[in-house]
């Protein structure tokens, strides 16, 4: 099975304090720790496991600036066979549809049987996989937490839906699936693994190579544009307790007792 996995380099929101930069034009980027989007990492692991079972190849692609190369390389260290980087100044400012359009062009250069994306990334939009499926006119399923290969024409899949129930479906190949966390346990990538792929060439695809007119992608093609970031004024917010560890713990005990939290 030829599998393409789409990955994004993001500041991990679990590891970073995200705050708004001057004028709200961007978040403060200095001191942020970047990594591969968590959902995408599960998607790469799943692709590798499928290929380990039924054979084939895993290609990892990222749309981003040249710094995205580091996460493509990391996912190759995990076991992906090839890496691709789609980068072009004209891609800057793309909305979800712009990113999906770039990925569509990547997908059309090679014959893939399956394309995986993470279910969502840092902006929480959860949109690129579904758009890519529609652009390619392939069937799509989101929030996938189970994949079984059934012959070479179809997959049996599970989707995670509300309340933790699982919706089982059959889906024809080729298809696009967005992967939910928890579908597998992504393998650890050690320094040795990274070293092994340190000098592997990662082909770079720009708008010209992908046959994309500049007006269809980037800020020029975007119908959804982020104007600024801000921190909402939400009600009173939490009353923050401060002091030494001892003092804070004491205040918490008092509050918990008062509210019946200690039984």
């Amino acid at each position, binding site marked *: 099975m030829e599998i393409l996995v789409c990955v994004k380099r993001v500041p991990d929101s679990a590891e970073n304090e995200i705050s708004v930069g001057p004028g709200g034009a961007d978040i403060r980027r200095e001191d942020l720790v970047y990594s591969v989007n968590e959902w995408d990492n599960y998607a790469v692991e799943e692709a590798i496991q499928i290929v380990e079972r039924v054979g084939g190849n895993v290609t990892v692609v990222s749309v981003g600036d040249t710094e995205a190369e580091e996460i493509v390389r990391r996912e190759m260290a995990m076991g992906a066979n090839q890496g691709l980087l789609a980068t072009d100044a004209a891609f800057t400012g793309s909305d979800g549809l712009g990113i*999906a359009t770039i990925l569509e062009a990547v997908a059309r250069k090679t014959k893939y049987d399956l394309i995986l994306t993470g279910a969502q990334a840092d902006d929480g939009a*959860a949109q690129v996989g579904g758009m890519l499926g529609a652009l390619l006119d392939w069937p799509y399923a989101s929030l996938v937490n189970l994949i079984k290969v059934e012959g070479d024409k179809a997959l049996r899949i599970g989707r995670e839906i509300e309340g933790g129930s699982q919706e089982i479906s059959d889906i024809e190949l080729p298809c696009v699936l967005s992967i939910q966390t928890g579908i597998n346990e992504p393998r650890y990538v050690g320094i040795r693994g990274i070293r092994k792929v340190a000098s592997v060439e990662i082909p770079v695809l720009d708008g010209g190579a992908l046959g994309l007119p500049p007006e269809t992608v980037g800020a020029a093609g975007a119908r959804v544009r982020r104007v600024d970031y801000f921190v909402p004024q939400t009600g009173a917010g939490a009353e923050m307790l401060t002091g030494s560890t001892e003092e804070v713990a004491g205040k918490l005990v008092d509050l918990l007792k008062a509210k019946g939290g200690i039984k």
Partner: protein
Amino acid sequence: MDAKIFVFITHTDGKADDSALELVTAARSLFPGCTPNALVAGSGVGPVCQEVAASFGEVWKFDQAALAYPNAELLRPLLVKVLPAGATLLLAHNTFGLDLGPGLSVKLGVTYVPDVVGVDGLEGTTLKAVRQEYAGQVSAHVHCDIARGAVITVRPGAFKPAEAGAAAGQVVDRSEDATGLAARRTFVELIQAEAGDIDITREDVLVSVGRGIGDKENIPLVEELVEAMGAALSCSRPIVDAKWLDKARQVGTSGKTVKPRVYLALGISGSFQHVGGIKGNPFLLAINKNPKAAIFQVATIGVVADLLELLPVLTEKILKSR
């Protein structure tokens, strides 16, 4: 404009989901004064159509046995067929909406506006919406060109439900349009979540642990606190993904919906999917090392601290106070 504003209604066990009336409010915020139309698809959906009719202009009923289960791959071509050019469709940003919406926007050739939490207004054909990014740590104003129409997903709980009965809608049976649909994804079965050894939905004091605990080896620190308090242990999604605790203990839209009196959130960032599983307005205490964590926007009491330092001291003090 009204003729082109639609709300897709999902339903469970013959009743419209809570999102239906929230979407009415969202539609009116987007297009002041509008009376949106509703789309209801399924098998035997007459009662659902009647139930919601009073809140919409027209209710289009698509009643077919083949639509008994809401398969987004089957409904997408139906909506492409029946929606008029330039239509704006609102959906809940839930597991169905985000399955259907992105691809639908492409097939309709309209703008996709995902996970809207607020509206700043409409200026000409520019929709000004509010979204959240980075797990709710920051918000963003987005401007969307909806001249050609739009598919908009609305975050559950972000808009108050509208009062039912503001319109005198009529049900229009369009079931004939829903014949001969085909999809390359077919529904097989629904597997209900397994019941665990504990039912956290019945507990009135919950101590919930999240990614901030750092390592499986640290879970006993939380268990000791739980025992000292006489509370029950629950968790957020990353803890289940890492297989440190059972799925039965997960609070959130993809886990359990709980309604405790007291909820102590330890190292939980506070994604809307997690907070969406906490009902009943509990006394909510949050401890997190990240002062920007979204959980502090909804907590009653907040503490910025390292769990590994604070928890043993807290447990000790509780035991001493007994």
